[in-house]
């Protein structure tokens, strides 16, 4: 049942990210719901599930992006794993702390991705950081916090995390 729900999640993320979210983009920037989903799964279900679901999300979304597949794979898998570790060690996660965490993780992964661009000089890199990486990190943080808050209204997330 859990595996099936993960498969459905991964399959639905593709149309959500590629078809629906472009309509909701602000100044051409849309949130990375793959990253948010990997972080939430890691946080709620632990390192291994976070890693595996993150890798699956990274792989499938990577197939629908012009970017390098390995980068998407490592970033989403790494975020799932990291969120799993944090979920085990932090007893009280709030929507705000999760949002801030996601902002930092998204910022780090966006910076790493920008550094892998071969043709960027310093001014272009800076332009990319201020107009793509940073707004997206803020967007990811807000979406992650909102999703966590919505989930916490419906489920007892602290119990879910310790199970």
């Amino acid at each position, binding site marked *: 049942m859990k595996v099936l729900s993960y498969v459905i999640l991964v*399959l*639905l993320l*593709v*149309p*959500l*990210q*590629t*078809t*629906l979210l*472009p*309509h909701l983009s602000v100044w*051409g*920037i*849309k949130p*990375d719901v793959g990253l948010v989903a990997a972080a939430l799964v890691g946080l709620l279900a*632990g*390192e*291994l599930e976070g*890693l*595996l679901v993150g*890798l699956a999300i990274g*792989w*499938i*979304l*990577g*197939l*629908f*992006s*012009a*970017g*390098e*597949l*390995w980068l*998407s*794979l*490592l970033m989403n*898998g*790494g975020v799932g*794993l990291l969120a*799993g*570790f944090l979920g*085990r*060690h*932090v*007893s*009280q*996660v*709030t929507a705000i*702390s999760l949002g801030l965490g996601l902002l930092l993780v998204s910022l780090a992964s966006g910076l790493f*991705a*920008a550094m892998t*661009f071969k*043709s*960027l000089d310093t001014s*272009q890199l800076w332009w*990319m950081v201020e*107009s*793509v990486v940073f707004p*997206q990190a803020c967007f990811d943080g807000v979406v992650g916090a909102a999703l966590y808050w919505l989930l916490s209204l419906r489920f007892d997330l602290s119990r879910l995390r*310790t199970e």
Partner: protein
Amino acid sequence: MWMAHSSSPYGARRIALACFALLLVALFLFPAQIQGLLLYLGGPVGYVVRVPLEAIASIDAGIADRWEQYVALQGVREENQQLRKEIEWLRGQHSQLRESAAATERLTALLHFKEQALPTMIAAQVIGRDATNRYRAIILNKGESDGIKPDMGVVTPAGVVGRVVKTTGVSSVVLLVTDPNNAIAGLIQRTRDEGIVEGTQQGLARLKYIPLLSTLRDGDRVVTSGLVGDFPRGLVIGTITRIDKEEGALFQSAELMPEVDISRVEEVLVIQTSYGQSLKAGTGSNLLEKPAP
């Protein structure tokens, strides 16, 4: 936030760490092979993902279509669409005819030119945009099973859209001409000077490596040169809007306004075989074919 004393499953944690470390090592040692394997495995996955993707894309297109029909007057809108299609087609033809006229003038002197075959094209629909914000790319509803392969050129009757960079069984990703990672061999139609067209971060394009002695000017059209890649010669890329000539530089460059409105592209043609290559009868559509009403 407080530190928790949770009864963490160390086994799962170790497995997760080992898996991630293994993946990192594998990607570090065999990057091309692992990436190739993941892309190969992604081929069949495309068939599974296609179901929700096409369903949501068609619902999305249906809602957008209905909404526009309610907001705009239906008859006027349809007429407008038809006229736009006709303008696009005429633009494409106009540019091709200009290119043909220039070529004919040169070739007439030689009297030894071969009869050229028209390129074979596959029509495809745009079903999504790049999954990340870092690339300007579109997703098409046709892939390997339809004969699409990486590096094939993608156009509309108005001009160049981009080139295919990734394919699954039933979908493909097209890197747009406005993406800074894209490079297409271009030619200024009037002066015949060649250069490389790259995207800019502002969503335009730039023709680089133009010879300093070139007499280019604003409003000149840039077309594909046909020398590199899978684009035939003479497809419109854009119009020069600004010329940059730095002192001491070996080349000059020019900013282009792409001919195709990239944000509104809904249907495209993928160039399967270029001019002069073997044609598969009846498998593709033709650039010079007038759009259906």
